[in-house]
């Protein structure tokens, strides 16, 4: 079947999509966007996290056809040509990236958390961060540097919003 959806602000159309295919497969194998990672294929690890109409979801659990006409946001849409996204820069600066496989999903989940928290008027607390990132597994870092990175991103994003 044919699938048309908007990915990172650009309309994409792909043909010959198998009806049982996941959005993750479409992004990686048909649209040339391998940023979202394929690990567990059962929603356990969060490394395939993308925005679907602004909501973070595991793209491995979205049937391709369910994305028809929807807006998808992936890690590839975060940086501009000039600069990394503040969340990406914070992950680098805080040393929150080791092997990097979980990072794209964590970046999307973190962006969602920090954006929501700042919109509500306060940077996220430790417990909130742990809860918001509970669906993103990292087997390298032990999470402490990731917590640092989220807090750093929140500080920078709240300063730049002022």
């Amino acid at each position, binding site marked *: 079947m044919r699938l048309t959806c908007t990915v990172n602000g650009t309309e994409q159309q792909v043909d010959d999509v198998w009806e049982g295919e*996941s959005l993750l497969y479409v992004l990686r194998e048909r649209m040339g966007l391998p940023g979202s990672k394929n690990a567990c*294929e059962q*929603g356990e690890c969060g490394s395939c996290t993308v925005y679907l109409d602004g909501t973070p979801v595991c793209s491995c*659990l*979205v049937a391709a056809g369910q994305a028809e006409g929807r807006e998808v946001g992936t890690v590839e849409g975060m940086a501009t040509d000039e600069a990394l996204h503040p969340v990406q820069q914070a992950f680098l600066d805080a040393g929150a990236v080791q092997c990097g496989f979980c990072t794209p999903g964590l970046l999307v*989940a973190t962006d969602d958390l920090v954006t929501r928290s700042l919109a509500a008027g306060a940077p996220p607390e430790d417990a909130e961060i742990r809860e918001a990132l509970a*669906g993103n597994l990292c087997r390298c870092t032990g999470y402490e540097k990731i917590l640092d990175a989220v807090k750093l991103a929140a500080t920078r994003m709240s300063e730049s919003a002022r």
Partner: protein
Amino acid sequence: MRFLQPTTWAEALEARATHPDAVAIAGGTDVMVGINFGRLRPPLLLDLTRVGELQEWSVDGGDVRLGAGVPYARVITELGDRLPGLAMASRTIGSPQIRNRGTVGGNLATASPAGDAHPALLAADAEVEVASVRGTRRIPVTDFYTGVKRSALAPDELIAAVRIRPPAGPQQYSKIGTRNAMVIAVAAFGLALHPDRGVVGTGIGSAAPTPRRATAAEEFAAEELSGLWESRGELPAATAVRFGELVATAAAPIDDVRGTAAYRVHALSVMARRALTWAWAEYRTAKES
């Protein structure tokens, strides 16, 4: 495989009637796992995410009518006050990404004995509203689960909604897993006090072939509390302990990778004792309404 995407409920029921071998998909948190791992190859996927009626909840005749496609995240943010037990259960489910997609309707359709919503629905005396081109019927949730991952849903039916009466008293939910997120329950327990009827509702999860009530425990609690509803007197500790024991006797668990049967029985007795204690403490301090 074919992919059908009805945009109205009538179209969805028509498609269901024509294709009883189709697999309905909403949040995909069960169905896509099956497809990704090659365990599920339905001839047709019936996508229900475009059916607007399923994505809404309303108050109807005193009940909350929760559309089958409302994700857990919205149960938590929009219905925490009206459906506290189900909202508590929803908070224990998966991760934010899973709660953004997974639905109570999907939990019911899968009918896993470990489904997290079931104990809360049982305790609250929920009804499942199912429909087909033949018409609509309501199934008490107690009668909905017929076996491991089997339900009373007919091949031509779809789940429209769950109907739950907002509580007249406190509700509790308790779940045991190896961590605080992304776990299938080792055992779970839901409890609802119904002071208007002098009844205590229960639901057991992950400890029998189907989610089930603890009927003997409910009868015992109703008897023991019959003189206490009005006075809001103290709950005797022995009553809570005995209640927990009776809940445990209602379970029929197995040993599996998540835990042993003996552990599940013990865990249920502890969760049930605590749930009744917490709920009764809340009832005692709540203002008379």
